[in-house]
């Protein structure tokens, strides 16, 4: 049984989160609360742990519908990329599905890519 799809998705005020495949999470809306880690850090950690347990080759994080986030939320993506980068032995590719039309995604995922290019992939849609 997939541990990834068994991860409990929290309800957050301004962001809709769904697991849309055995290796895909989709987030849409905005993330601008004071401490987004309260809702999302645990989710990202659980998805990472489940992906490792499932020995997934790739995890797709579709953020193309996230129209705006604050820097505290960007930090959560930095943390996720760092967890994958720091794994020894098996590790998966973390593929962010992004939109060319959303400014923060262009600048921030470019920066994230430079940080952990060996474990990240960026896919552009629209």
């Amino acid at each position: 049984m997939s541990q990834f799809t068994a991860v409990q998705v929290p309800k957050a005020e301004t962001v809709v989160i769904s697991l849309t495949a055995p290796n895909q999470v989709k987030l849409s809306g905005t993330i601008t609360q004071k401490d987004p880690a309260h809702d999302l850090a645990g989710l990202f950690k659980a998805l990472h742990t489940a992906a490792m347990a499932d020995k997934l080759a790739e995890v797709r994080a579709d953020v193309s519908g996230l129209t705006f986030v604050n820097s505290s939320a960007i930090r959560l993506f930095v943390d996720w990329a760092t967890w994958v980068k720091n794994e020894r032995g098996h590790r998966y590719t973390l593929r962010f599905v992004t939109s060319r039309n959303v400014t923060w995604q262009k600048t921030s995922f470019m920066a994230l890519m430079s940080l952990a290019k060996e474990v990240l992939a960026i896919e552009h849609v629209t």
Partner: protein
Amino acid sequence: MERAENSHIPKKPGPYPLVFMRFRPAWAYIDGIREFGRFFCQTTFGTQELADRACVVIQETLENAVKYSSNSADSELELSIESDGANIEFSISSRPDASHLSSLREELIGIQTLDPEQAYLAAFVRASNEPEASARLGLARIRYEGGVELSMKEESGGRIRITATGKL
């Protein structure tokens, strides 16, 4: 995107800012003020790109101002937006807790030793290396994604003014 037909871009600075707002330092106001800034820049200057930059500048500067404001009765925030037809200036005045001032000064000096892209990349590396520390991505993000330069002026009464200036 094409410029708005009823563009209100001033030819030279007027006696008053295009926008001036004064409000209590409450997190609940930030989303609304950011989205007003997006609407204002889109409507006045007619470019989505500038509207997106305005959102980053307003969100991150107001978050910092709200987080570190003192609890005194005179700690209202002031946001103004001005333009001379070639440049845009966002100015945020606040009364921070004294303990925050030196770290803010250091952070501003630090990011200004690098070009905006390099400073943003360096902030990512620092965040990655210090998982337990606060993100501290905001100021570098403002410069890079907002396309502005930042300056800080200390004013009377313990207030500070952060100014973000960039091309239209």
